[in-house]
C-alpha cells in the first residue's frame, strides 16, 4: 500500500464515520462531532487525494466549489426538516452549476440554475408545503433498522474507494490519449453557437423527442392529479402531521 491509497483509506473511513454521525436519529452533540469529522475528511480529500491543478488560483477556485458542493450535499441528506433539505440541496445545485461553468460548460451551468434551482426545486418546496403540515414528522427523525446508516455509508465508501483506485491508476501512470490542447472545441469562445449547432444538426431528432417527452409529462401530471382527486379515498379536509 503506497501513500496515496493510505490517505484514501483514511479519508473514506473518516467520511463514513462522519456520515453515520450526521444522518438522522442523532443527537446534537453527535451531529457536531460528525460535522467536524466530515470537514476533516473533506479537507484531507481536497489536499491529498485530488490531483493538483496547473495554477494556484484554479486550485483555490476548484477547492472552494468542490467543498461547497459536497458539504451542502451532505447537509441536505442529514437535515431532519425537509424544507432545510431542499434549501441545502439548492446550495449544492449552485455549487454544481459553478463546477460546470469552471469546466467550460456555460450553457449547462445556466440551464442547471434555471431548470433545477428555478423549477424543480420550487416544485419540491411547493409539494413539501402542500403535503406536510408540520415539518416535524416522526419519520424524518428516524431511519430504517439500526444498521441502515452504517451499511449505506459502507456501500458508498467502497464505491468511492474502487472508483478512486481505478482513476489513480489511470491518472498517475500515463495519458492514454492526448486531448487536443491547442484549441479545445468545447472551450471555444463561440460556445453557445457551437453547442446549438451541434444540438440542432446531429441531435435534431433527440430534441424533438425531448420536447414531446416534456409535453407527455405535463399531460400525465395533470391527468394523475385529476384521477387521484376522484379516487375512493377522498382527501380529508385537514391532514394530520
Amino acid at each position, binding site marked *: 500500500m503506497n501513500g496515496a491509497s493510505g490517505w484514501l483509506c483514511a479519508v473514506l473511513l473518516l467520511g463514513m464515520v462522519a*456520515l453515520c454521525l450526521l*444522518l438522522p436519529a442523532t443527537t446534537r452533540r453527535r451531529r457536531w462531532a460528525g460535522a467536524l469529522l466530515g470537514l476533516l475528511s473533506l479537507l484531507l*480529500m481536497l489536499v491529498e*487525494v*485530488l*490531483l493538483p491543478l496547473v495554477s494556484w488560483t484554479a486550485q483555490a477556485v476548484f477547492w472552494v466549489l468542490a467543498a461547497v*458542493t*459536497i458539504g451542502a*450535499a451532505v447537509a441536505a*441528506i442529514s437535515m431532519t426538516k*425537509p424544507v432545510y*433539505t*431542499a434549501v441545502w*440541496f439548492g446550495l*449544492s445545485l449552485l455549487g*454544481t452549476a459553478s*463546477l*460546470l461553468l469552471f*469546466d467550460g*460548460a456555460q450553457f*449547462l451551468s445556466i*440551464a442547471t440554475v434555471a*431548470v433545477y434551482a428555478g423549477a*424543480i426545486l420550487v*416544485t*419540491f418546496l*411547493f*409539494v*413539501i*408545503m402542500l*403535503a406536510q403540515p*408540520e415539518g416535524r*414528522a*416522526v*419519520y424524518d427523525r*428516524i431511519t*430504517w433498522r439500526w444498521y*441502515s446508516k452504517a451499511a*449505506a455509508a459502507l*456501500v458508498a*465508501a467502497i464505491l*468511492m474507494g474502487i472508483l478512486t483506485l481505478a*482513476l489513480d491508476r489511470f491518472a498517475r501512470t500515463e495519458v492514454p490519449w*492526448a486531448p487536443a*490542447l491547442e484549441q479545445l*472545441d*468545447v*472551450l471555444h469562445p463561440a460556445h453557445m453557437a*457551437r*453547442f446549438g449547432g451541434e*444540438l440542432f444538426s446531429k*441531435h435534431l431528432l433527440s430534441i424533438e423527442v*425531448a420536447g414531446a417527452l416534456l409535453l407527455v*409529462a405535463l399531460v*400525465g401530471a395533470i391527468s*394523475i*392529479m385529476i*384521477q387521484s382527486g376522484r379516487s375512493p379515498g377522498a*382527501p*380529508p379536509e385537514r391532514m394530520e402531521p
Partner: protein
Amino acid sequence: MNAGHEVALLHNYLLVGGLLFAIGLVGFLVRRNLIVLFLCAEMMLQGISVSLVAWARYVDDWGGQILVLFIIVVAACEAAIAMTLILALARRSNKLDMLAWQDLREANVAAYVDREVPEERAPSATWPTLPPAGVQPPVDEQAQLYRNHV
C-alpha cells in the same frame, strides 16, 4: 494549458461527481421521506452530469454536454410526474413516509415496525407576543387551521 492539467481536472471532476452520486445514494437508502428520496435521486443525477461534462472536455466532444442537457430535460419530466404521484399518495395516507406503502413488499418479508422513536425536541424559538388588551375578539375558525411551522 497542458496535458497534466487536463488529466488532473478530469480526475478531480470524476471524483467530485462520484462523491455526489455516493452521497445521494446514501440519502436514498437511509431517508424515509418521499420528497427527500427524490431530492437524493436528483443529487445522483447531478453527480452523473459533473462526470459527463468532465469527459466532454477531456475528449473534446460535445456529446457529453448534450447528454447532460437531455438529463436535465428528463429530470424535469421526472420531477413533475413524481411530485404529482407523491402528492396523490400523501393525500391518501396523510404522510410522506415510505413505510406507509410497505404493503407492496414481497409476501414472505415480515412487516417493518418502528422501534425507539426519539422524543421530539421542543421548538427552539419562542416568538414575541403582545400582552392581551381590550375586548376579546371573536375566534376566527379559519385562522385556527393555519399551521405555525413549515
